[in-house]
């Protein structure tokens, strides 16, 4: 199995040599377009609710799929529904945000544990302190899942279902409106990504990078909707997926470093010097890995990936829409 760093390097190599294809002009369905938008919306809603029972059992894959399907639906909703600024659509988006946030805390700990397991697997021998730190991380994940499951029960999920059913019943927007909304979203998010990467330069600012990753993900999910509306797979989502993956693995190690820092501080207070030293060393390893991944990320020329991605969407940075 490849380590996250190796996987990221392979992605970087592929990203650096990839020419992202341009989006072919829209081929909108002549009729039945409103129905198509409604169907796409219904599919996403069905996927979300199919994942709900598994997530309620604390199943790792179920939680992940619930979060992903919730995010996809959040992006698709304002593109596809009739009266996107309406009360129901707004409430559904807020509930979806709560849903994805609720699933998020527990899922992040899954990823941290996975990253640390890969690190320990590469070591010839694990020290007792490393085993204890891993045990703490696994316990934090278990507690996180229990909290997440409890919080999922507290969501007004039947209201969300009702709102989504009512939105589907309206039949969705016409393809022309979906395309117009898509264009507005591309310009807004594209401009922010362009500005963000320009401001960031070669600095490693994990928080800012994470924000840019969220925007890339939003664009990717929006392209998926746009492609489905036109019945054409443009591959314009690929640059955003590449950015998402490259930043994601980097961010995971940054968060892992912060988690180890907290353990080191707590152990120092408890007077457990050996454990505090191990946690500090593990934090240093996670931070060094994040820095290495950041160098790989820069080597992939993110600004070029953004430019290619925006060109594929027909967005020119700096050209603001009215």
């Amino acid at each position, binding site marked *: 199995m490849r380590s996250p760093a190796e996987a990221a390097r392979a992605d970087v190599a592929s990203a650096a040599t990839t020419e992202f294809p341009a989006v072919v002009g829209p081929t909108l369905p002549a009729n039945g377009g409103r129905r198509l938008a409604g169907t796409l919306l219904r599919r996403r809603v069905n996927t979300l*609710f199919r994942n*709900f*029972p*598994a997530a*309620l*059992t*604390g199943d790792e894959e179920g939680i992940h799929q619930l979060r992903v399907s919730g995010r996809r639906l959040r992006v698709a909703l304002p593109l596809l529904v009739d009266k996107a600024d309406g009360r129901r659509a707004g409430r559904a988006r807020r509930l979806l945000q709560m849903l994805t946030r609720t699933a998020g805390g527990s899922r992040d700990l899954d990823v941290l544990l996975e990253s640390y397991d890969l690190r320990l697997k590469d070591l010839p021998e694990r020290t007792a302190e490393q085993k204890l730190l891993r045990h703490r991380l696994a316990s934090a994940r278990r*507690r996180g899942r*229990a909290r997440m*499951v*409890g919080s*999922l*029960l*507290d*969501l*007004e*999920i*039947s*209201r969300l*279902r*009702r709102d989504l059913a009512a939105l589907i019943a309206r039949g969705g927007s016409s393809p022309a409106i979906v395309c117009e909304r898509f264009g507005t979203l591309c310009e807004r998010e594209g401009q922010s990504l362009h500005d963000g990467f320009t401001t960031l330069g070669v600095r490693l600012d994990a928080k800012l990078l994470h924000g840019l990753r969220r925007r890339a993900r939003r664009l990717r999910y929006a392209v998926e909707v746009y492609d489905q509306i036109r019945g054409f797979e443009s591959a314009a989502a690929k640059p955003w997926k590449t950015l998402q993956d490259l930043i994601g693995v980097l961010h995971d190690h940054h968060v892992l470093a912060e988690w180890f820092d907290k353990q080191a501080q707590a152990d120092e207070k408890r007077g457990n010097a050996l454990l505090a030293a191990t946690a500090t060393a593990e934090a240093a390893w996670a931070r060094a890995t994040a820095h290495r991944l950041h160098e790989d990320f820069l080597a992939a020329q993110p600004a070029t990936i953004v430019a290619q991605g925006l060109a594929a969407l027909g967005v020119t940075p700096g050209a603001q829409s009215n």
Partner: protein
Amino acid sequence: MRLLFIRHAIAVDADGSGMRDEDRPLTSEGEQLFRQTARMLARVAPKPQAILTSPLLRARQTADISAHAWGDMRPTVVPALAEGDWPGIRRALASYKGDDTVALVGHESWMSTLTARLLGSDSHRAFDYRKGGVALIEVDDLEARGGTLLWFIPPRVFRRLE
């Protein structure tokens, strides 16, 4: 308040049936087996003041069989029982008194998760309801996590009691 949790009986499989999930009915075997369960349930469990059911067909059919076993009852559909939306379920329970028994007919996985929560346990996998499985829980306060599990019975035990 006593909450009688009843998981729906055996229903037509989701895969291959081509039906919408909410339209899946009980199989004839499921209906027959649950009638036996319901007869015993009516003998061992206190007659509830109300039967609240999920709107999904398999749950409504299960609730109807239970209502028939207790005699002269009519289930009430509560949409929140489809997904285990706890705020919605709490609202539905708000009109009942402290010494009432209310039957809730619904689905996994929320039933085991909610059962664990009401009993103050984080082990939501500890209560695995079989189809047609039943549990009776006593709670003083729906917000608190200090309920008492009075019993938890798989359907095959009920049938053997008959």
